[in-house]
């Protein structure tokens, strides 16, 4: 690395980097976007393959045959559900007991921070019922979970019934090496969360629940089943979990392998696979599937009951039955066989699922993009921030070396109060972030008193109000700094220093985010990097203020809402989009409070303050 130690060569190199900084940055940005879009192109992706030996080569014969019985059970369950006006706990306990399971119940209650208008719930009280099939001659150290949510209305009856039918069939088999837990949870994710917290005896979200009586050791994998019709046309696999966590890719491979074996149409993101990768339509289709995955992963919420298991290092996926207008139908027996095969292969596991990838994107079920392929796309965007920072660093150092600037000694003297002045905007932006994080939920009562809005609206509108109010802050800090330092060159020095800090801060933030949740990091980088890299106080204020606002985190969410709706082929008008945007914000806050999703605190406490620092720079005088 003599290249950097040798002063003359180093001078050449830094000179090159500063001179060509802007073109390099533009090239990097475009390359990053192109790289990302190229990920969906089939020749650039890898074919999925089963890494786990225990699941790959072992033969499993599916013999489940009581699909019809499951459907009649679904009717019975439906009748009891109607009679009980919710979860028919007693009936379920009896049904599981008669199938030879050890049955336990868990009651839980949770008061939401504010009413959830999507699901119309505020005070949630419910009961989970679960039965444990004890594996013969196994010491209760390992378990698999099959869960079916007991949803209101007449959805998901078939899932619960199929669960019971599978329990009955499984109970008569001798080959189980792991205990199997059949869980019927009420209030979908809240019930799952209560059960998982009870099982692991933790309390991270302030849920109230009764302790669990029966356990079965460490859970190796979980499958969540959602099924609302007697026959289905395709099965959809849902992988995205809380905070963008994904289960091991082998679980997806397993599902795909059994769909192939049993001839069931399978989709991911609701999109069937196409074989014409070399046509424009084929590529667009794959790109859309991948974009949907990226959007779903980025929003950090759990897209099915499985998502909450991932926190506990339990590989989990949701299987969702879809009944559309295709001619090709699959009956309950085949779905039962598919699940039987999957559970039996999971039962064969000799180790935790770890062989395959945990970080991947799926342009289709048979193709995947691993972390090694998609990370460069983000790296190309992140390197722009570092290049700009290097440029600024060189500029900061340059006057010190140049003999023309006689005032260098003067500028060094106030540098210690100067660093403190840089701190002022940093602290103020972060305090705004803290306000954005804390106030919406805590001020809802006051807001409801003074304005004619509901609690949910109050929370969302308060959040938007604080977000907008944050934009007014730079004037305050600017006046404050004016009084302290008067000399123009020091001001220049200060803004450069602030921008350098902000750039490095953003680079670190995005880098860490992308490591945990690539999609979120990438989407934020795409919108934040161009404007933050180019912003200086010497630009036309009004125009650039507009551009900055349009590329701010809140607008990113808005665009994502529209793109998502476009991709799922349910485009919305502007006003509908706006309503969706509001509900997305309230759901984000709820997800954080209920399940510990980290996207809302990340945006409020870090990304938004960081963006405010750049806003400050724009209005620096």
């Amino acid at each position, binding site marked *: *690395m003599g290249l950097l*130690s040798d002063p003359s060569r*180093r001078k050449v190199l830094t000179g090159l980097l500063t001179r060509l900084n802007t073109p390099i940055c533009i090239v990097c940005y475009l390359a990053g976007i192109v790289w990302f879009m190229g990920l969906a192109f089939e020749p650039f992706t890898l074919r999925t393959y089963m890494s786990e030996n225990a699941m790959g080569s072992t033969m499993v014969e599916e013999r489940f045959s009581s699909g019809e019985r499951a459907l009649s059970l679904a009717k019975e369950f439906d009748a009891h559900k109607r009679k009980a006006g919710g979860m028919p706990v007693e009936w379920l306990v009896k049904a599981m007991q008669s199938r030879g399971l*050890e049955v336990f119940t868990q009651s839980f209650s949770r008061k939401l921070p504010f009413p959830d208008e999507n699901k119309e719930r505020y005070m949630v009280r419910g009961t989970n019922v679960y039965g444990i099939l004890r594996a013969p*001659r196994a*010491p209760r150290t390992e378990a698999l979970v099959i869960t079916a949510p007991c949803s209101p209305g007449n959805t998901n009856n078939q899932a619960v019934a199929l669960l019971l039918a599978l329990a009955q069939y499984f109970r008569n088999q001798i080959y189980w090496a792991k205990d199997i837990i059949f869980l019927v949870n009420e209030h979908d994710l809240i019930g799952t969360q209560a059960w998982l917290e009870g099982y*692991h*005896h933790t309390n991270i979200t302030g849920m109230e629940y009764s302790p669990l009586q029966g356990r079965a050791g*460490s859970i190796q994998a979980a499958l969540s089943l959602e099924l609302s019709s007697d026959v289905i046309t395709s099965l959809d696999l849902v992988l995205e979990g809380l905070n963008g966590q994904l289960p091991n890719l082998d679980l997806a491979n397993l599902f795909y392998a059994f769909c192939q074996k049993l001839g069931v149409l399978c989709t991911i993101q609701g999109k069937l696979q196409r074989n014409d990768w070399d046509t424009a339509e084929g590529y667009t289709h794959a790109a859309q599937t991948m974009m949907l995955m990226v959007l779903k992963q980025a929003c950090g919420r759990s897209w099915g009951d499985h998502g909450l298991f991932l926190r506990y290092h339990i590989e989990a996926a949701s299987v969702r039955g879809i009944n559309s207008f295709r001619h090709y139908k699959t009956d309950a027996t085949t779905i039962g066989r598919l699940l039987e095969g999957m559970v039996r292969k999971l039962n064969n596991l000799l180790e935790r699922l*770890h062989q395959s990838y945990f970080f991947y994107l799926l342009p289709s079920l048979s193709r995947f993009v691993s972390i090694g392929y998609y990370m460069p796309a983000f790296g190309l965007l992140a390197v722009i921030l570092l290049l700009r920072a290097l440029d600024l660093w060189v500029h900061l150092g340059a006057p010190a070396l140049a003999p023309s600037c006689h005032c260098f000694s003067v500028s060094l003297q106030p540098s210690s109060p100067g660093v403190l002045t840089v701190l002022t905007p940093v602290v103020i932006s972060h305090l705004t972030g803290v306000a954005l994080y804390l106030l919406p939920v805590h001020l809802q009562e006051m807001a409801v008193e003074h304005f004619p809005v509901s609690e949910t609206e109050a929370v969302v509108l308060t959040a938007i109000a604080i977000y907008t109010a944050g934009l007014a802050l730079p004037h305050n800090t600017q006046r404050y700094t004016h009084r302290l330092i008067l000399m123009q060159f020091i001001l220049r020095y200060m803004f450069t220093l602030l921008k350098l800090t902000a750039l490095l801060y953003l680079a670190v933030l995005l880098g860490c985010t992308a490591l945990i949740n690539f999609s979120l990091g990438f989407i934020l980088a795409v919108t934040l990097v161009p404007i933050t890299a180019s912003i200086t106080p010497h630009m036309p204020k009004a125009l650039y203020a507009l551009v900055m606002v349009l590329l701010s985190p809140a607008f990113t969410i808005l665009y994502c809402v529209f793109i998502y709706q476009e991709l799922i082929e349910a485009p919305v008008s502007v006003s509908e989009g706006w309503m969706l945007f509001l509900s997305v914000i309230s759901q984000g806050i709820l997800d954080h409070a209920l399940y510990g999703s980290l996207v809302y605190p990340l945006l409020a406490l870090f990304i938004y303050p960081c963006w405010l620092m750049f806003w400050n720079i724009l209005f620096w005088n």
Partner: protein
Amino acid sequence: FRLSSLIGHISTCPSLIGQCCQRHPGSVDEFQEELVIRPLHSGDIYASFQFRTLWDTDFLQEGQKVSHYRLFPKSLGQVLSKFSVRELHISFTQGFWRTMQWGQPFIPSPPGAELWVWFHDTVSDVDGNWKELTNVLSGIFCASLNFIDLTNTVQPSASFKPLGLGNATDHRFLRYATLPREIVCTENLTPWKKLLPCGSKAGLAVLLKSEKLFHSSFHSQAVHIRPVCQDEQCTSKAWELRQTLNVVFDLYTAGQGKKEWSLFKMFSRTLTEACPLATSSKVYVDITDNPELFELSPATPLLSQAVVLGDRRTYSVFDLTRAETFGQLRSLNLLLRWKGDGGEMLRPLLHAERYVAGFGLQTGEIHTVIYNNHPYRAFPVLLMDSVPWYLQLYIHTLTVTSKSRDNKPSYIHYQPAKDRHRPHLLEMLIQLPPHSMTEVTVQFERALLKWTEYTPDPNHGFYVGSSVVSALVPSMVAMNTNFTQDQPLFSSFVPVKEESSYFVRVYTEPLLVNLPTPDFSMPYNVICLTCTVVAVGYGSFYNLLTRTFQVDEPSLPLAKRLANLIRRIRGVPLLT
């Protein structure tokens, strides 16, 4: 507290053993065999075999060399004398005893292998003897007992007292170890059967066919060797070898829809004769719940009552030494037909379970929950926990709570672990309030192992052996303290000292814990490569950011410097 009484209780009163071992005059050795069949509430069926061989010799007497073996297996006899073993208990179990569904077993055992040995107090190098003994037993039973070493051996101070003669209390001569991961299968059953005088050729042992025994919910086989009194006055000692085999058959998987059991269905054999070497050979069927739950055929007029585990039970007895037992078909095939509808959970008086709480790979918490379901009696229990060193217990976080109140143990024996040398040992005497749930929690941190210490890649995780709860549980009926010859074997293993209580040992489930494990495959190379690149790149960038480089002027040669000196004096410009 009642520690001394509890500990004293587990050890034996010599006179009792004397009574139970009255023997026929003239015979030197004696062999008894017994099978107990107990229909369980859940619809499953529990079969418990016990084979007892008595031998009136004393291996440990000085100068006496034993070379003649009749019924007692020579392989074990030699081991006993070579290693000066006073008492030996070894069990191999596949599965977990479901106390909530099946009640208490006659002789409990933890999942996997368990071995505990009392050495004679003349042994000087106990650890050396222990190591050799485990290796020898490993060979005899075809098991991985050679994996027992100092890192999983403990010396419990109170939980495991000798069950035979003598009142040894110095736990320096006791070694206890479990292997929770041990898989028990046919290769362990065959050597176990070979220890029987009749092998599996005759007697009850013909039923022990592995294809059926391992098609069950629970399988446990054990060998217990201990010294007992030879006669009532206890003038001389005898060695008792008890081989037990417990198996639970599952109604659902084996029943094929029909709710009935028969010897043939359970074992794919019927009984035709007793072992000719046996002095007694009996089959007991628990008919206490008859005829509400099931009906038994053929009926037998012979009934026997016994008080077992705090409960008075009635048994039908089939004596295989009598020809009329086999009837005209010359074979005995017991048949049980279920009438009742089981499935309800039981509430055993003492019950314990254990689990790991928390998530993530850094810390965790072990919860042990002990239930006292007695409606009005409190009783003390001894809890013993042996935790491997790689779970670093934070013993200051130890809490014991009953009915949401702090419950201070009256006796705590804690031996901290030494990394790679010795496990944690925690023994506590806890008073359980009536009708309560007592929760013992302790936090731990998962250790980072050295890279050679990780198990091979396909591993489930790291196992932590069961904790052991030993207690004297208040009995509902008066226990029988007066042993007679007729006493069936299953009720005479643990001697009873008082009428009001009986001894129970409950094992919790083993734990499966994941330790932070690097992925030893490809990513390892990637990490190495990345680290190298980062290190090299980092070094130069660090240089670039922190140091300023200046071109160092080369110093002038000596002649020039001298010339400059002169020039300076002369006041002319200097050379460069």
